[in-house]
């Protein structure tokens, strides 16, 4: 019985740009990124920011306009898809409708020079890995969406590719199935030690599955880091707002000492990591669920008037008007006795606010 292993390798982009023929603006603009061997890295960003293009360049389905792509230490920039050791799970799954599940999984093996016997064994092992060993004789049209996707994954896995690519793999599944499938993908990736590049526009999904996230915006990398880095310390307003939500405010850095900044926000003074900013005007991001509503007389809080309180089940969503702007805050105590018109104090203690670039 054969076992599916992994030949995981790293992927590196060096200053890669892509301009589609007939288009003036770059779809991907001077991007340099690295995906370490055996890690799951997510490309995250709004629609049209160049994620799919990036993924297709790794697969060899599009060619770079300039720059270099290195997979497993080898320059593959000019190699077409057929000759790269990269497999891709397509958004539509792209199962061949005229072949059975098993023939689909065997398809790539046939072109890899395996002996006939081994092709069958490997296909079986692949189907077993995704729990579909009993479905080999069916046509793709006789499977549910989730099953179809698992076939697509098995088909890609049996080739033991250096890199496995997923383009929005959950977008064709219903909401309930999504969590399950994304866990499955993550488990498989960890179990086999695969290098996976995963494209999504859903920040929650990205936070849940990734070792590292690369946030893209307008054809460039906006920030990259672990899910925690991105959530706790967004580098700029775009990332702060795209991952989770954030209140973005103007503030004043009064002094910087040993990397610690003193920040003045209206009447409140706060201490936080300077993140390379000099004294002067700056921007501040505050997560809505890291704001506490307290008694207005509490010291060093921002006085505010509630203008709207909405009950959404697991928490209360509040809008609060202050002298530095409107705040969106989440109050986890659903039984709190607050109503529009109340005067409250906004408390930013703990790891709440961070300084961001523009």
């Amino acid at each position, binding site marked *: 019985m054969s076992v599916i292993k992994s030949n995981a390798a790293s992927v590196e982009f060096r200053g890669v740009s892509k301009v589609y*023929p007939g288009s003036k603006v770059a779809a991907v603009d001077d991007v340099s990124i690295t995906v370490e061997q055996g890690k799951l890295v997510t490309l995250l960003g709004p629609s049209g920011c160049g994620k799919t293009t990036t993924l297709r360049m790794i*697969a*060899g*389905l599009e*060619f770079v306009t300039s720059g270099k792509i290195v*997979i*497993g230490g*080898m320059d*593959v920039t*000019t*190699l*077409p*898809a*057929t*000759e*790269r*050791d*990269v*497999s*891709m799970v*397509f*958004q*539509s799954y*792209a199962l*061949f*409708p*005229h072949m059975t599940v098993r023939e689909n999984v065997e*398809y*790539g093996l046939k*072109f*890899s*020079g395996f002996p006939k016997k081994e092709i069958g064994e490997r296909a079986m092992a692949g189907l077993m890995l995704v729990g579909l060993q009993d479905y080999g004789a069916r*046509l*793709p*049209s*006789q499977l549910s969406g989730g099953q179809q996707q698992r076939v*697509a994954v098995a*088909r*890609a896995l049996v*080739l033991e590719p250096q890199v496995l*690519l997923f383009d929005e793999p959950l977008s064709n599944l219903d909401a309930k199935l999504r969590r399950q499938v994304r866990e499955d993908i993550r488990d498989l990736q960890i179990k086999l030690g695969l290098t996976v590049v995963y494209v999504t526009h859903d920040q929650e999904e990205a936070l849940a599955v990734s070792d590292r996230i690369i946030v893209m915006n307008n054809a460039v990398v906006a920030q990259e880091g672990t899910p925690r880095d991105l959530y706790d310390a967004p580098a700029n307003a775009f990332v702060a707002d795209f991952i989770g939500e954030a209140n973005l405010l103007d503030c004043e850095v009064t002094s910087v000492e040993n990397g610690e900044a003193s920040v003045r926000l209206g009447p409140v003074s706060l201490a936080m990591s300077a993140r390379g900013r000099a004294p002067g005007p700056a921007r501040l991001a505050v997560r809505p669920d890291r704001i506490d509503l307290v008694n207005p007389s509490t010291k060093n809080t921002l006085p505010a008037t509630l203008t709207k309180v909405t009950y959404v089940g697991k928490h209360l969503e509040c809008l609060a008007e202050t002298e530095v702007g409107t705040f969106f805050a989440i109050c986890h105590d659903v039984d709190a006795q607050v109503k529009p018109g109340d005067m409250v104090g906004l408390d930013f203690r703990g790891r709440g606010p961070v300084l961001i670039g523009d």
Partner: protein
Amino acid sequence: MRQVQHQSAFHPTVILWMMVGLSGFVLLPWYMLDDGLFSFSWVSDGYPFDSDVAPALFLVLQGQKMWLAPLGGLLVLPLALWGRRKNDPVFGNVLIAVGLSGLVWFFAQGYGISLRGWNAAFLTDMFGKLPERQFGMGWGAGLVGSAFLFLLTLGIAARGAVGGDVFVVSSIGLIVGLVTLFILLPILKMLGSALITEDGGYSLSSFAGKFLSLRIWGLGCITGGSRCGVAWNSLFLAVIVGIVTTLLGLVFALIATRTNARFQKLLRALTVLPVITPPFVIGLAIILLFGLSGVFTQGWAWLFDIQPTRWVYGLPGLLIAQTLAFTPIAFLVLIGVVEGVSPSMEEAAQTLRANRWQTFWTVSLPLMRPGLANAFLLGFIESMADFGNPLVLGGNFDVLSTEIFFAIVGAQYDQAQAAVLAIVLLVFTLSAFYAQRFWLGKKSYTTVAGKGDAGVHPPLPRGFTLSIGSVAAFWLMLTVLVYVTILYASFVKLWGVDFSLTFGHYIQAFSVGWNEFGLHWNGSAWDSFFTTLWIALVSALPTAIIGLLTAYLLVRQRFAGKGAFEFGTMLSFAIPGTVIGVSYVIAFNVPPIEITGTAIILIVSFIFRNMPVGVRAGVASMSQLDKSLDESSLTLGANSFQTFIRIILPLLRPAILAALVYSFVRAMTAISAVIFLVSARYDLSTSYIIGRVENNEYGIAIAYATALVFVMLAVIGCMQMIVGRRNIGRRGQAGSANQIQVPGGG
């Protein structure tokens, strides 16, 4: 990078094409043989030393045709690439150099040296008189030429074109080569021959004289003189036919989509008529009904006691016949357009207080405008190109297509005159084609495919529905009358004289008997029928392959010069059959390609006349195949050739079948090009029928035509059944093959 299992020292594709080229050079007869490509008698005819059947190598070794020697040298040159990899720049450069110089030399000697030695005076002056001559190219030459072409494309791919994809670059090379050789070159050669004067020189002024002659452009009919020029006749007819068929097509499309009339199904079935009917059959029926001895003419004359007249011969008859023949084509175009108008637009208009009539006039109709223009241009081109109807009932109303025919086959045999007329015709149709393409947008292959979104079309105004209903009913009646007449007339002894019924015509055409050798096909039609059958069959497969390959390149690949490529392959839509016929006669009766009088010229003309049908079928269904299917095949390690064979072809099976059947059927019913190309040995059904009509043997002609219509009907019916049943769980794939637009035969 994927581990490559076999790494041979010499690129296998280079070996392949070297072998092909060398076998053409060393093994097969270089020149075309007297008994055609499909005979093997040469093996015992003094092969390999007799110079008529000798391969190039043996010719050269015997000191003949020394100009062939460099080709052999070039063919072994790629051996120098031993041990080099494909991504080595030297590899690509050497192949490009070999392929290019091979092709240039190949065509230079082919076109430079002909039956009388050097082909042009200046070559004789330069190199002295040549003692030898050469004939048309045959198998050997064909293989050598292809070998050079594909070595060149391999080299270009190796230098990185289209992502280094050998299959795609070779396919592009193949299509470009074929279109150049069999469409572009013949047309250019025809243009050139228009410049030739009576005494064999070239003259622009003589061309201008012919081009501007009164015969073509005269305005006699307006200024009170005798007749108008043929160009004006053709133009006038085509404009009217374009307008009338567009309006009728719109009427039918509206009825088919906007009313709940019961005969919707019937209407859709009508679209198959122009496909299965040889175009002149309608003309024949018109003669039977309204001709000098036609039932209506005679009845009218008897009723009012007047002389029956020949009123229908000429413009009136042509208008009726072409309107009947081409309305289904306009209908086919417009039904997609009418369905494509989103009902929610019309619903929006109604909520904005427009009444039904205002909605139709201000919203629906303007949205259909591009479709209307498209239908008009198609009708215009079809009418211009129509040959069969003007031939049988044109009378004194001369049009370009028949005039071309008479210039070539008539007593005058004036190639230059035919070429001049063909140029005028070509200018008209190409202008229409150009207008269609650049004025109406680029999507000429595919109709507007999208169905409207949710919602229902509002019903049309009542009075309007009634009036278009009656127009449609009248047209339907006329159509039914035409086909019934044809069917009935095939059993009538002598129309207009003796209306007694008989099987005589069928027996004369299709009788079968026994003699000492077994079954004997006595009937006079069998010969041409079998010839047509096998030629149509043989040409169907290459038509479908070339069409689908072109469609694949157009839909799935991006490459430099794709716009020009698309334009070139679409051009054959706009070239009337008559023009193709004339240009083939002119281009292919002298070396290097000397195939007039053979079956090959018929096959080739069918392939390139019908190629657009294959392209359309392929484009229509390939655009519905999710592109990620081929991409995932590529990422799974299949190359583009394997992907084409294993993924695209199986999924396009319905389209392939449709393309095969339609090109077969069109080949069976075509007349305009082949009438120039048939020979005593290879006569075709349509030209045989036309011949009978010209001899006034209407009975047998009609019986034969009826039989043809029924054969076509059976073929199409079988295909619909097979295609209809096939449906393998694919998104929006079912039935796409049934919606292919097929311009009528001609």
